[in-house]
């Protein structure tokens, strides 16, 4: 047993000594592979974290939302539907929601204006999301002026900001009173943006939404499950796309490793011949190649995973922020809950370490079974 370990250590000694002969090239290769695995692992951790976040946080969103559709577009829905909805058996409550978008031309930012149902806002005041507070440098007691779509200036005193830990869900939210909301947008009386419905028995959501569809034929009914599902698939398949793209890069790298291992120079072949002549077995030569591929890719994986963890959970995925942000000037400053699953780490491991190692070993097979007397010929 000790002998086997000692022997493998000698083989590692040899592997390192021979890698050190082209230190610059091999370190460069290691660095590039680490970078690649780092991006892959970051995308995976960020995607998984956001998916988990959406799944748990949005589980508290309204059970059913009823929207009115007009010519394929979201339209306002009359409050008169509320009474009819409340009559449906199984519905615990139905409530009109008022929300809409405001484009702040000065800041080139989109805000979501909302009338909250859980608190009363004094007319002429607003509570703002903390990303807006940061962007416009606002605090309690300050005031903002918004130019309404009807070209009228509105002044809102800042009555408070939403807690900063809520930025992931309410970075751009501006809470205003109903009177202000309707006046600002010229929102017609008797209409609301959509209707939130809660049901008595969560198992009856499907039945209830079918009833709602029959009652309001031009409505679109969105259930909480739909919301969760859309987030699941949103991050799922986009992260899948990125994984596929990066898997392409990993594959390219594997091909490089394969080519490097298969295209042995005459020099390298002679070296294998020498090793065999002085008493190395075929398996020793292959073991050296195994260590070469394994040490490089395992090292790259360990370093890259650690960096990816720091990147995503301590630096908020800063490198991906430009892609997530897009044209937006408003971007939540969020701290992700570190969600790691063993399966996810195993996937990254098998995607990066195994193919690279195999690509280093397999092509050497043929060179390794070279006759030991070749060096004498």
């Amino acid at each position, binding site marked *: 047993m000790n002998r086997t370990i*000692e022997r493998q250590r000698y083989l590692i000694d040899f592997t390192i*000594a021979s890698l050190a002969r082209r230190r610059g090239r091999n370190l460069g290769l290691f660095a590039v592979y680490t970078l690649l695995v780092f991006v892959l692992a970051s995308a995976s951790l960020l995607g998984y974290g956001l998916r988990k976040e959406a799944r748990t946080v949005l589980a508290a969103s309204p059970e059913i939302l009823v929207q009115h559709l007009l010519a394929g577009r979201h339209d306002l829905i009359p409050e008169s539907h509320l009474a009819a909805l409340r009559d449906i058996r199984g519905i615990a409550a139905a409530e009109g929601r008022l929300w809409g978008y405001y484009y702040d031309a000065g800041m080139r930012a989109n805000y979501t204006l909302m009338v909250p149902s859980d608190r009363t806002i004094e007319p002429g005041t607003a509570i703002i999301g903390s990303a807006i507070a940061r962007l416009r440098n606002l605090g309690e007691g300050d005031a903002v002026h918004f130019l309404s779509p009807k070209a009228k200036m509105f002044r809102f005193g800042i009555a408070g900001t939403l807690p900063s830990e809520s930025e992931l869900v309410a970075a751009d939210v501006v809470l205003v009173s109903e009177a202000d909301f309707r006046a600002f947008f010229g929102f017609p009386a008797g209409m609301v943006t959509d209707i939130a419905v809660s049901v008595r028995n969560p198992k009856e959501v499907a039945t209830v939404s079918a009833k709602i569809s029959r009652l309001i034929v031009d409505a679109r009914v969105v259930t909480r499950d739909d919301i969760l599902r859309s987030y699941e698939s949103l991050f799922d398949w986009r992260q899948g796309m990125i994984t596929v793209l990066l898997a392409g890069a990993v594959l390219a790298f594997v091909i490089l490793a394969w080519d490097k291992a298969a295209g042995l120079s005459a020099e390298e072949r002679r070296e294998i011949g020498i090793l065999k002549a002085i008493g*190395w077995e075929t398996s020793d030569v292959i073991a050296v190649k195994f260590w070469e591929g394994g040490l490089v890719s395992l090292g790259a994986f360990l370093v890259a995973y650690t960096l990816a963890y720091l990147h995503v959970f301590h630096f908020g995925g800063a490198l991906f922020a430009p892609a997530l942000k897009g044209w937006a000037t408003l971007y939540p400053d969020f701290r992700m809950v570190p969600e790691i699953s063993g399966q996810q780490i195993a996937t990254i491991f098998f995607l990066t370490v195994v193919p690279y190692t195999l690509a280093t070993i397999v092509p050497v097979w043929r060179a390794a079974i070279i006759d030991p007397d070749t060096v004498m010929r």
Partner: protein
Amino acid sequence: MTGSPFLALQGIAKIYNEGRHNEVRALADIDLDLEAGKVTVLMGPSGSGKTTLLTLVGCLARPSAGRVTLEGRDISGMPERFLTAIRQRTFGFVFQRFNLIPGLTVADNVMLPAYPLGRPHPELKARCRELLEMLRIGDRADAPVQWLSGGEAQRAAIARALVNDPAVVIADEPTANLDTALTAEFIGVVEMLKAQGKTLILTSHDPRICDAAVVDRVVEMRDGRIVGGR
């Protein structure tokens, strides 16, 4: 070793690329007994088959026909793995162009044949140092082998051949690239090894070697056959 030869070859033939158009009959009808503790030189012009014979003696290759007996054991039919094991423990090789692995240090090169055996590292290092001191290149241990002079490279190659303490040292054209002074030094090393009880088998067409006092036996070869000896 009681009377019977250390290494015996009977009816050996070696054919390369057998059955193909580029078939080469390198050796035919070789019968040769080698005694332990002696210095034997296989002499002949290039193409006489002496190097091929050396590969058969050193278990680097198997004969196409005939029998190789090492210490009374028939090894000509053994699978590659067993030959490797025998080679590791019984033979040390000094190749014509030394075949040191460039980029590695002298010490790393010397220790290479011992790696698959998994000996404890301090012991192996001590052995390596001892050999390099014995061959008077101890101060070059950490130098990359490409920095060595011809004589130093040969001594590094000899140290590598000796690291597993083999009974037999095989050297192919050891003085081909050496001047007179270095050849004399090499013969000194051969004398030292012989004094330590090693069996040496060399190939050469260099009269400086063949006529050396330390040589016990010269086997003359031509066209793949043994044509004489003394």
